[in-house]
């Protein structure tokens, strides 16, 4: 029996199906999950998610979120999950630029949440751009 992967964003369920193995960007670096993994909850960093299905490796750019791992399931909650063809390079670049400008403006203030939000936006845009550019 294979691993069941479910990727859910607030807008929709992006993927749900049986996969070989899953590699995801965890809080402590990339981690691979095989079938029979110990139950685990981990925070996700923006980055690349890979899973194997029918002998092919699929790659998605994901935002921050969480993953719940049990013996036979991986439930992934994230605010973004985009395939290579869904990424709009110009848009991602622009979002990154905007966030960087704002970050420069408020970096001396102590609004911690705003800072972490902007950093997340930048990291998310980076993840998208990395994926897009590497494929090409």
């Amino acid at each position, binding site marked *: 029996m294979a691993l069941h992967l479910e990727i*859910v*964003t607030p*807008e929709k*369920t992006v993927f749900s199906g049986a996969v070989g193995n899953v590699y995801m960007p965890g809080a402590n670096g990339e981690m691979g999950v095989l079938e029979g993994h110990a*139950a*685990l909850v981990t925070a996700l960093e923006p980055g690349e998610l890979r899973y194997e299905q029918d002998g092919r490796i699929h790659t998605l750019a994901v935002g921050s979120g969480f993953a719940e791992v049990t013996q036979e399931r991986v439930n992934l909650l994230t605010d973004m999950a985009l395939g290579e063809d869904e990424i709009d390079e110009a848009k991602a670049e622009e979002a990154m630029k905007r966030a960087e400008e704002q970050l420069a403006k408020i970096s001396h203030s102590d609004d911690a949440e705003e800072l972490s939000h902007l950093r997340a936006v930048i990291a998310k845009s980076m993840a998208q751009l990395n994926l897009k550019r590497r494929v090409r």
Partner: protein
Amino acid sequence: MANLRDIRRRIKSVKNTAQITRAMQLVAAAKMKKAQDQALAGRDYADLLNKVLVNLKTNFEEGSHPLLEHREGGKELVLVISTDKGLCGALNTNLGKKIRAEKPGADIITVGRKLRLQLTKTGSHLVSDYEVKDPVPFAEARPIAKQLTNLFLEGKYDKISVAFTNFVSTLTQEPTIAPLLPISSCTLGEKQDYEGVGKGQVRETDHMAALGVDYLFEPDPMGVLDALLPLYINFQVYQMLVESRASEHSARMVAMKAATDNANKFIKELTLEYNKLRQAAITAELLEITTAMKAME
């Protein structure tokens, strides 16, 4: 006694009204479909998030995190989610009634113009007001959730609830007041009530949770909780906004359908009356002519 021209004029005006309500009905129907899909799509996420949280909860004491802390008494704040536009049946009235009955005197933060006007007029203190686009973007829930969280953490309010209209079906929308902060196991358990779909669906992980499987946490339990709780509040607010939006469009479509039907019925009645009058006029005219002819003979 209405004359022919008056009736003709009325038919024309009712026809115009029917045309407008029909157009509004179609627009609402299209928006309704989108909003309903959005509301339903969010439920998957809510489901999963809820499950992870319930699993987490078993690893924590009540009150071990500032956002989980229960404080006695104190001031209450209600986030009121209403609509910007009217013509959607009794949607806002019902919600307003419920708020006045259950949370009298609570301070409010509003989304949507209708209940803001109504509640400020009846003396509720308005803390702030938000405008949310249609369809609801996820990013717009963030500032609202952030303000609520800050108000709670600063101790200005000790209990924060959300008043919104829960979308049950196209014909049924239920005004609901749900507690948001502090997050309690009770909030988590009740959540299923207004997230309707997914109820009774038992997945593998539910069994695991029931068995009390111990989860590993990465980086560590507190770190996970720190990041997960704000996300949870964010998402709660978003989901409630979306549910309200779906309710609004459904209610509007139903209300407009009723209005169109009534207008059409009215047109029918008026047309009947118009024809009767016309016939009577013709008969009278004929009668006059024949009488005149008879008189000439």
